[in-house]
């Protein structure tokens, strides 16, 4: 916990000591420039930070709170984001039904461009080593008269961010300050504004500086936060200020993303609106490859693999890259390992030829996705995979949400959902505090949030970590047998499977 000159936890200090403390503090604090006071200051304008702001503005209980958000990117640009109908950003997330219902409840879902959003009802997951599979298909659970249940909804992050910004703009600008193109230059404890003002010695005071073209002319602003929310990502400055340690490790893996156009499927899905997500674990290549549906027969690729493989894949010309993606869903581990070592500067068709020839000699599973036909230019990118979990989510007048609190392996697509679940819980906690006369920055308030979120996040992060480790043991052996036994059992026991599916949905 950060040092607070007069700790919130022990506000009583005997008069002599207090005299000494205030004399010492006076040397640093200048009383004349008292900061602007805000109830909630959120650092970070990603989906989590904007989601919190939108949730607070949407509730009649918290809509009167004075709130601020600080984001280094240009939020006006994010609000004006636009792409051609068949172009898709490569930063795509899958929203669980509970996340979707949260977005509905705060009135943000209506601002989402639904023509760019794709639900899927079926999920095919299999082990590239043993071939054992599990299928998450809600259409078997529901009667033909109901709508098919959705496993998850794919949306571009930019679409979501734009929807949240529009929702916030809808709430008017009273009591709202958006510091766009701005960074937090410093965070420090406030000072006691005795005698004419309150004692802010336990309040975080931020110095907000404009960036970009306004950096020269803009003047830094000082704002004090009753509650400072860190939605500022894995290297959270708010977390550093709060002196909260984080544990974790780097996976030594990179995630490759790309937007792909798929070939027409050989057999039309039944029912026609049914969409399927595909994930194949590739133990000897370092992680799973997943193909998640986007509208108009597009899909987004997430391939977790070693940094060497990632570098190799990114260096390939487009036809070779496509051949590798299609091979990864079809060929044996041995074949894939061989193709991963092929000369990337060879003939542009050598990868495709290799795939065509080897696929003839491989028994293909029934659940493979339609072949990827094209890559959208400029969408192949990679990012390192990491696991992090903050030791605490809260500290006096501080709360961490989203990646600032936890970063997990993306193999279950749960990262953004956990972040928005944090936000839903924190906004509910703030509502409870306001309606019960509690200070929203008080530890007694914030502990409600952290006790609600810490274990679920640890559980899901841990489950993803376990899956990653189990599916990184190549070859036949006890782990591979256990995997196929486990998947086989789960696939055959409907109640276990539906329990898992409900958990994955976030219910």
């Amino acid at each position, binding site marked *: 916990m950060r040092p607070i000159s007069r700790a919130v936890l*022990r*506000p009583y200090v005997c008069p002599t000591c207090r005299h000494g403390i205030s004399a010492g503090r006076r040397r640093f604090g200048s009383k004349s420039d008292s900061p602007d*006071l805000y109830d909630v200051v959120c650092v970070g304008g990603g989906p989590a930070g904007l989601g919190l702001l939108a949730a607070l503005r949407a509730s009649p209980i918290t809509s009167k709170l004075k709130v601020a958000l600080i984001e280094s990117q240009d939020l006006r640009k994010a609000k004006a984001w636009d792409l051609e109908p068949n172009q898709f950003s490569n930063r795509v997330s899958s929203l669980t039904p509970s996340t979707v219902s949260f977005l509905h409840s705060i009135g943000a879902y209506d601002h989402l461009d639904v023509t760019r959003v794709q639900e899927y009802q079926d999920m095919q997951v299999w082990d590239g080593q043993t071939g054992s599979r599990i299928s998450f298909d809600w259409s078997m659970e529901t009667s033909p008269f109901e709508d098919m249940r959705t496993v998850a909804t794919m949306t571009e992050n930019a679409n979501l961010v734009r929807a949240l910004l529009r929702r916030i703009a809808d709430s008017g600008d009273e009591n709202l300050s958006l510091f766009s193109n701005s960074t937090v230059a410093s965070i420090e404890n406030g000072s006691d504004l005795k005698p004419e003002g309150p004692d*802010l010695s336990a309040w975080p005071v931020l110095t907000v500086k404009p960036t970009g073209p306004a950096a020269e002319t803009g003047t830094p602003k000082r704002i004090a936060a*009753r509650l400072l929310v860190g939605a500022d990502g894995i290297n959270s400055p708010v977390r550093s200020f709060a002196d909260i340690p984080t544990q974790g490790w780097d996976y030594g893996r990179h995630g490759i993303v790309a937007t792909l156009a798929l070939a027409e499927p050989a057999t039309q899905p039944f029912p026609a609106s049914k969409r399927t997500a595909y994930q194949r674990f590739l133990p000897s290549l370092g992680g799973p490859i997943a193909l998640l549906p986007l509208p108009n027969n597009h899909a987004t690729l997430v391939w977790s693999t070693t940094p060497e493989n990632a570098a190799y894949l990114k260096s390939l010309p487009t036809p070779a890259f496509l051949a590798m993606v299609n091979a990864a869903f079809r060929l044996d581990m041995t074949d894939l390992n061989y193709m991963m070592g092929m000369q990337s500067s060879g003939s542009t068709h050598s990868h495709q030829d290799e795939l065509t020839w080897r696929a003839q000699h491989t028994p293909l599973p029934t659940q493979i996705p339609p072949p990827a036909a094209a890559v959208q230019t400029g969408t192949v990118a990679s990012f390192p995979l990491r696991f992090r979990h903050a030791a605490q989510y809260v500290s006096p007048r501080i709360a961490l949400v989203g990646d600032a609190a936890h970063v997990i392996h993306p193999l279950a697509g749960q990262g953004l959902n956990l972040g928005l679940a944090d936000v839903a819980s924190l906004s509910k906690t703030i509502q409870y505090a306001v*309606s*019960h*006369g509690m200070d929203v920055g008080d*530890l007694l308030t914030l502990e409600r949030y952290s006790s609600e979120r810490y274990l679920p996040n640890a559980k899901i992060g841990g489950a993803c970590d376990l899956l990653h480790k189990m599916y990184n043991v190549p070859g036949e052996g006890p782990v591979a047998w256990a995997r196929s036994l486990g998947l086989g059992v789960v696939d055959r026991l409907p109640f276990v499977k539906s329990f898992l599916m409900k958990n994955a949905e976030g219910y």
Partner: protein
Amino acid sequence: MASLRPRTFPLSARALRSTLRSTRPSPNHFLFAPASAPSTPTPLTRAHSTSSVSADELSHFSALASSWWDPMGPSRILHLMNPLRHEFIASCLAEGTSNPTASTPSTATLNYLDVGCGGGIFAESLARTIPLDPTSPAPTPTLAASMTAIDPSTDLIRMAREHARMDPTVDTHLRTGRFKYLNTTLEDVLAGNAPISTSASTLPDSSSTSTQVTPSQYDVVTLFEVLEHIDPKTSTPLSFLTNCLRALKPGGWLIGSTISRTLPSFILNQVIAEAPWPIGVVPRGTHEWNKFVNPDEVKGWLQEGLMRAADTGVSRGGSAVAEGMRWKCVGAIYVPGIGWKMVPGSEDWGNYFWAVRKEL
């Protein structure tokens, strides 16, 4: 499951006892020493009660003051209970207030008096709900327009004020006088001679800004975790409750919470809650079980008190007042890991909230 009260409470009981003892007018009431000179040792309690505080209790007292607002300290269970007080008050006010002519039901119009506020856990939380702009709608169903919190302990009042300064909203209310901490007794408030400003040292400008006259009658009088600390040797709950009712406007609510003296409550409070770690959640010696009061006892005193208060001519008199008494009572149970829950019917298990409405 247990109803709990931290060890620190007997001290507030002591403070209260001094309130009760001072029912007889005493010249000591005016001997209150303003805490303007920090160099001079200030009395821990007001002069008239200093004699009842032993050296042992004094050291205990400083421990109390430093940990009162520590969310993990011995008062934690009380902090956790505080939101329920707001909910119980809201449920009472939903049945009617002393201000039926208010233009809109959601305007903040009610004046509160918190008797035995201690370090201000409840008083400060209610003050936070007072809108900064008196004309704007009340943010909560407690509809508070002002809060006067009294406690006879100088140290606790000073600590409460010091803590209130950490919230700019509450600090503003302190400066405008909509929120007041008074180091005084209920009897002084009734007599209209409550000190307006008592802490020149912490708020030098308050004497000039807090010019608002303390209303002698209130819309809501609260009495949280106070009743069970009355020392039967020096005062009676009946005379104390009668005074509380006198401070109430017709149609207003007297609302409190306390612990019942029953077998289940004995098991929960004395045996389980004070058991050694990890079962127990409060230190040994926290409770004085024989001072706990049962709901029917409170109800009886209030009936008698309503009649006595009526005899002073504020309201219509006689037993008719007691017969039409609006009485509410609901139990509250603390479940470790879950928190406090209102459980109707659990009044005899330990903690319970009670409320009575003075007839219009």
